[in-house]
């Protein structure tokens, strides 16, 4: 009876699966196939040529470095927010949630322009750093890697906060109290109770942010400009400007392989750390 109902329920997934098959899997397959097709049929030539070029390794390095930094910043900034959000009640929680979710409705381009204003030499961040004495004089943040990391982290922050929040919310607050009555200091309790129990949220948040920032296209082109290529901007340019589908497919596949392997690998690693913590 139950398994019968279960089998019938599976049909509910058909529209989504069909949608993904037509609009995602098929183009992706085409892309994969295209990257292995040379003038004389099947070849790895595109990849070996791509990887033989030292410049492309620099692009891969740029892509991974920025994605990791963005993920790290989102984690460091987002984790305490997720805890606060889960702890907040009533009006304060509504305000916090709104503040986190509402920016998702603002387009990336608008945000990038806003960041351009904030990151200017006479912008808020530079003024803050000068007035606090960290900087002697205003320096350029715009179109620098720190500027890009700050801007991208801002855009992707909700995707770190929300998965962690959804896990924190489920943690029985008595566990924290139980730890206290057993003589554990707040720091110890955080390390041994909260951190391991929020690890699933951290993992999915990091996977979200990393995969989005490794493939971001508009944000680096607006906050970093044309002098800083990532795999995504290189892919975009190959298709849109150079009309070189083969090269575009190859870079896209390299990006895909890197992103998937890092997300899968880090998930596996964090699970291990989470278990042994």
């Amino acid at each position, binding site marked *: 009876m139950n398994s019968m109902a279960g089998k019938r329920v599976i049909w509910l997934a058909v529209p989504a699966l069909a949608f993904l098959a037509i609009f995602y899997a098929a183009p992706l397959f085409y892309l994969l196939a295209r990257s292995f097709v040379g003038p004389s049929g099947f070849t790895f030539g595109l990849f070996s040529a791509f990887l033989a070029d030292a*410049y492309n390794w*620099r692009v891969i390095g740029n892509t991974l470095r920025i994605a990791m930094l963005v993920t790290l910043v989102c984690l460091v900034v987002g984790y305490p927010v997720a805890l606060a959000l889960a702890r907040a009640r009533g009006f304060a929680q509504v305000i916090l949630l709104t503040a986190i979710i509402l920016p998702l409705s603002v387009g990336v381009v608008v945000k990038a*322009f806003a960041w*351009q*204003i904030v990151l*200017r*030499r*006479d912008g808020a961040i530079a003024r803050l750093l000068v007035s606090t004495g960290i900087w002697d004089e205003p320096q*350029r943040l*715009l*179109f*620098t890697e720190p500027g890009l990391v700050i801007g991208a982290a801002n855009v992707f922050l909700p995707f770190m906060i929300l998965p962690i929040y959804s896990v924190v919310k489920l943690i029985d607050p008595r566990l924290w109290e139980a730890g206290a009555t057993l003589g554990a200091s707040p720091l110890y309790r955080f390390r041994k109770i909260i951190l391991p129990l929020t690890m699933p949220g951290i993992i999915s948040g990091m996977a979200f942010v990393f995969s989005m920032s490794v493939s971001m296209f508009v944000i680096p*082109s*607006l906050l*970093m*400009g*044309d*002098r*800083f*290529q990532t795999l995504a901007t290189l892919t975009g*340019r190959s298709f849109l*400007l*150079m009309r*070189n589908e083969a090269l575009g497919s190859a870079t896209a596949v390299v990006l895909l392989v890197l992103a998937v392997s890092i997300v899968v690998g880090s998930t596996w690693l964090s699970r291990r750390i989470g278990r042994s913590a």
Partner: protein
Amino acid sequence: MTSHSGRGLSRRDALKTGLSAGIATLAAPGILRAQAPRELVIGGAASHKPWVETHVMPFFEKKYNCKITFEGTRSLVNLEKMQKNKDKPYLSIVQMDDPVMILAVKEGLLEPITAAKVPNMAKLKPGTVHMDGMWANYLQPWQGVAYNTNVLKTPPASWADALDPKFKGRIIVPSLQNTEGLPNLFMFAHLATGKPMAEAYKDIDAAFKELQKLKPNLLTVYSQMPQAFSLLEQGEAHMILGALSSFGMQRRLDGAPITMAAPKEGIFPVPSGIAVVKGGPNADLAFAYMNELLGAEVQSKIAGPTFAMPTNTDTPVPPGMPTDAKIHTIDWAFVAENRTEWVKRWDREMAT
């Protein structure tokens, strides 16, 4: 690449203008005999729509008893529309960038024009009719140096001013991905070699070497023009090399503290091309439309709003346009051949 002096272009001759209008009228009667209004479909840029609808459409529809449908999109999309419907074209006229015109010619999509079919061809400035009449330029917005007037009290006299160390991190240039990114390459070849532009522009090696000097001063290399101009207006950037007049002058009119300069080395016209589609419907109307766009009457109406230089020698140069600048026409065939290589090199050598 050809260069010539624009000196004296602003002088006009009322008699000549009247004469060219007369020729247009003489060509008209055969068309006027048609009874039901016929349709002329034009593929152009979305940004053309305002002036086409205001200054061209009513005038042309009345004069030739027809109806114009204007499809505003991007040049590459127009190219695709022509390719897809090659056997039975529905576009009669295309208004596209010159580099895309070259691609269209290669695919055999365009019908060459002659002075017989398009009398105004004879009135055009040199260098504005391309590949034996495959297409012509009806307007030339131009590229020079845009600068922030709050920061720079006098216009930059030379493109090389941008190399001054006092502009550290204050200069913006367009990406080579953008059409407007190419002139900088030629200008830097000219700056590096000191030879006349017509000789210098092919020395791309020299250009890249000279561009290295610009690197410390670069704020960014843009692919989104509005972003570059907003940075200039905010004062974060002080100059944009290779800025488009149609954009920069409009912002200035809107009150932004920026303006355009035409330094002593010269400026680059940005060719707005027009061509007749091979085998397109109502060819007679198509040639008539082209003739009107190349004519002094229409050009004098649209040159002002688009901050462009007219190509018809009888058309007065609108106020605010440089009247005595050297004008360098870009060798688009050379560009088409080498652009991919240049982009690759640019990525490597201009990277942060």
